[in-house]
């Protein structure tokens, strides 16, 4: 007899001891009896005196009852250990069922007779057939194969449970990582009896993945001495090679069609010179063996802005670039529809790559207030910015009514940005008004000043920061400048240094941003340089979250690293995928990291870390301090090439289809133990209520 239960013997022993002690204590503790009034207790006395002659038997019955209960507890624990008879059946197999759940398994050609029946549906059917054919001693583990390898069960002989696990599987939008899955299967099977791995897939894997398998060149590992990685250890071999020595690997193919035209690349960017316009890049490929006609449509939001018919020869790839597109909504979508006419090339069983998304950073009209004594250089530089309206007031007017002047008289709303030119007021506009300071001094300066430095020069700049992009300041002259002391705990960053003294600094205060220049515009020739308007434009773009280099399109099946645009002190963000599912993503080095599994537009929301998270189950009423979007597309030619492989060759070995499992004679005993427990419980119940054991 063997024990298959997941509970360690020490735990079972502990539980048994506690249960036995509790049972004995329950028998020892005197129960509280109900009181009844009788008219003549002498009669009872006489009866009881007669019965006292049987006192020994009475005690014995009580012990019998205790023995019943202890026996029941013992049997329950034995059942929990999962006793089996004949577990070492030589015919029993240990099977890992690797079910491909990659994007190509969404192709709707699982069964030509059934509409919208996907390869995944067919794979699940085949997996269930395999499970149903398992013998009594066979054990199976299910591993889901997509961009990651996810074991969904341990080795189980429970067919209904395995079928339930298989039924619950869904294909993801990511490419498959077969070597990783094989490595996991090899680890799981190492040291097990008659190991078998069955791959249920359409065989849509890249050539490097198929050759990354070795069959026994590595030294054979002793049973139970698995390294835990499953990777080959032979000298001179690629460390990434998976060693499948001693493991029988079978293949069950699904899918029937190969026609597919898909979008393999889609991106958008603004023009640097004219940020109101943008251009779009789309790449489409015919993966089928027949010529195909498609209508390629480009949508801005829900509005189609370009529709074009394209014809593609088998294997042909075409690139479309749409230039000078006007602004609109930020979400762009490319869509492929089958063209007119019949023919295999004009139908498409794989809809996942027929759609792609890209995001355009939103543009908005920027309103700026300058607090200055009529600085024409400053005013002239702002004219460069197209979507910008500005007003100016003197420092005295600002100080007289700061709450009034920071409202745009036309719109009645707060200005987006206020520029303080050679003035450092005590009262500053509230967030989300962004601030630019030139030569801030005194206690009201946004950055602590360490003093003045005479005739500084810019020796170093932070070129990665959006404000300093494309800026060259090394030959600019200054008569003097404040030296800032950026506080990194508040998210301060130094943008330009004179040797080691920061003289330009920036900060993000959750909902607003601040840039401060330590020098006065009256004491520099910066205004005469081309860098000056660029510096202002970059600052205003940064304020608006408008970054020309911002990549908003990602491909699924990878770990996304999303820059959070200067958000500090945020250690976690909430990611909402296109299906509305929320996950938490950690933030490290200013970037949120998560594994992308779904095609479509994702939302990333950051909350104030000081604000407590809502209790599980209650609605989240927190106000986000920042929100971002990103688009994820399939973008995988391997997955779009959906032609099913009737045979799969791994490491030079062609895999065969598995036979049905041989039925072996192993019997699980727990059900009989449970039946015995039920029988004992019934006997105990009857004997107690018939007053036999009391």
């Amino acid at each position, binding site marked *: 007899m063997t024990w298959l239960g997941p509970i360690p013997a020490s735990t079972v022993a502990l539980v048994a001891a506690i249960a036995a002690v509790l049972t004995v204590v329950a028998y020892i503790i005197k129960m509280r*009896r109900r009181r*009844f*009034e009788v*008219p003549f207790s002498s009669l*009872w006395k006489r009866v009881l005196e007669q019965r006292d002659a049987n006192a020994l038997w009475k005690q014995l019955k009580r012990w019998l009852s205790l023995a019943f209960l202890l026996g029941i507890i013992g049997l329950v624990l034995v059942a929990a250990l999962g006793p089996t008879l004949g577990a070492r059946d030589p015919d029993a197999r240990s099977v890992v069922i690797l079910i491909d759940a990659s994007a190509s398994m969404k192709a709707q050609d699982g069964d030509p007779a059934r509409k919208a029946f996907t390869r995944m549906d067919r794979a699940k059917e085949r997996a269930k057939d395999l499970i149903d054919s398992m013998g009594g001693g066979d054990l199976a583990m299910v591993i889901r194969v997509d961009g990651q390898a996810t074991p969904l069960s341990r080795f189980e002989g429970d067919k209904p449970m395995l079928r339930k696990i298989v039924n619950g599987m869904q294909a993801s939008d990511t490419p498959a990582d077969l070597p990783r899955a094989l490595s996991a299967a090899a680890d799981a099977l190492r040291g097990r009896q008659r190991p078998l791995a069955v791959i249920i897939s359409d065989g849509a894997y890249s050539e490097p993945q198929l050759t990354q398998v070795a069959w026994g060149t590595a030294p054979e590992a002793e049973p139970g001495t698995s390294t835990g990685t499953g990777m080959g250890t032979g000298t001179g071999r690629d460390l990434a090679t998976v060693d499948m020595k001693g493991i029988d690997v079978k293949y069950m193919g699904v899918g029937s069609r190969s026609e597919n035209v898909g979008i393999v690349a889609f991106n958008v960017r603004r023009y640097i010179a004219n940020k109101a316009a943008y251009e779009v890049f789309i790449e489409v490929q015919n993966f089928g063996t027949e010529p195909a006609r498609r209508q390629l449509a480009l949508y801005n939001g829900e509005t189609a802005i370009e529709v074009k018919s394209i014809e593609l020869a088998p294997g042909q790839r075409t690139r479309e670039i749409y230039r000078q597109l006007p602004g609109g909504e930020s979400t762009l979508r490319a869509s492929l529809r089958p063209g007119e006419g019949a023919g295999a090339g004009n139908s498409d069983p794989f809809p996942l790559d027929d759609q792609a998304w890209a995001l355009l950073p939103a543009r908005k009209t920027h309103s700026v207030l300058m607090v200055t004594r009529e600085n024409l250089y400053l005013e002239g530089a702002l004219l460069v910015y197209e979507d910008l309206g500005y007003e100016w007031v003197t420092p005295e007017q600002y100080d007289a009514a700061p709450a009034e002047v920071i409202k745009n008289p036309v719109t009645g709303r707060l200005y987006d940005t206020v520029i303080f030119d050679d003035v450092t007021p005590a009262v500053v506009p509230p967030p989300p008004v962004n601030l630019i300071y030139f030569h801030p001094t005194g206690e009201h300066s946004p950055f602590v000043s360490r003093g003045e430095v005479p005739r500084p020069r810019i020796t170093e700049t932070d070129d990665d920061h959006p404000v300093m992009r494309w800026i060259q300041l090394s030959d600019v002259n200054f008569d003097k400048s404040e030296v800032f002391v950026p506080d990194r705990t508040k998210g301060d960053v130094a943008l330009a240094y004179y040797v080691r003294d920061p003289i330009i600094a920036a900060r993000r205060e959750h909902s607003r941003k601040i840039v401060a220049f330590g020098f006065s515009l009256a004491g520099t020739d910066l205004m005469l340089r081309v860098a000056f308007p660029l510096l202002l434009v970059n600052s205003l773009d940064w304020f608006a979250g408008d970054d020309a280099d911002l990549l908003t399109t990602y491909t699924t099946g990878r770990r996304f690293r999303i820059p959070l645009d200067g958000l500090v002190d945020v250690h976690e963000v909430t990611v909402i995928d296109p299906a509305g599912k929320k996950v938490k993503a950690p933030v490290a080095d200013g970037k949120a990291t998560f594994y992308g599994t779904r095609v479509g537009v994702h939302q990333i929301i950051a909350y104030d870390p000081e604000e407590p998270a809502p209790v599980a189950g209650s609605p989240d009423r927190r106000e986000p301090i920042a929100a971002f979007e990103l688009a994820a597309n399939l973008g995988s030619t391997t997955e779009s090439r959906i032609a099913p492989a009737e045979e799969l060759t791994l490491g030079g070995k062609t895999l065969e289809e598995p036979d049905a499992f041989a039925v072996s004679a192993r019997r699980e005993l727990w059900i009989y133990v449970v039946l015995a427990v039920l029988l004992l419980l019934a006997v105990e119940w009857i004997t107690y209520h018939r007053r036999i054991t009391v």
Partner: protein
Amino acid sequence: MALLAKKKGQPPATSGAARAADRSALFDERFLRTLEHLHMVSRKMFAGNLRAERRTRKVGSGIEFADHRTYARGDDFRYIDWNLYGRLDRLLLRLFEEEEDLHIYILLDCSDSMAIGNPPKMHYAMKVAAALSYVGLANLDRVALLPFSDHVLGRLPPSRGKNRIFRVFDFLRTVDIGGTTGIAEAMKTFVSQHKRRGLAVLISDFYDPAGFEEGINTLRYNKFEPFVLQVYDLKEASPNLHGDLSLVDCETGELREVTVSKALLEAYTREHERYCKQIEDFCTARAVPFFRTHTTIPFDELVLQIFRSGGFLR
């Protein structure tokens, strides 16, 4: 045995003593009509219209032959049975039953055990006592009531005539009740206080830890004619108990922990029956009229049964 808490887990209901204490509705108009009916029936069953219709066993100067006894010196020659002398050659005296107005003493057990039952046995016993009193009063016998527990709790002096029945009712409504059962002591007190012999109707459940025999014998030895009526509740005989219980004696407060099983219940029922049979055998062996009844039998039915048996009316 009475179950004060009938259902499992239910706390004991209102105590029997408290229920028995409320006797206001015991003797109503309907009850009185029933008594009158009983009286009429008794008259039909035993026709006779004499004063002091009931005859005592006392041998005296009546006209009804009762027995013979050996002649002794000093006896009245007129009563020698000469016919027997001629046949047997022995002088035997003819005895006649003396007719007199009989004293009927109704001794009613009012101990705590009589308060058990639903309705309490005591109420039933009081109704029977009232019925017998009425018939006795109507027959112009002298009827006295004496409730007792381990001593005599009160006394309604002997009286005669139907109209006295209301005094009986009032007495039974107001008499103090409670205490432990002590028949022997109570009977000793009774016989010492009542020199006039007569019929002593003893109504009790006979749940006396000291035994019932001495009490009945006390009546017999003091020339009273005991008439024994045992009242019990059906649930006393076959209690519907189950499980682990603390049994409390309603009179002594004695606590007894017991796990009631079916076998134990059967043993108890047998023991109860044996006890009742013991009382019956005792009385039968001593020619003492004995009746056993439970509270579900209507009291008028019981009274008629008593009349028919002839133990009370002659």
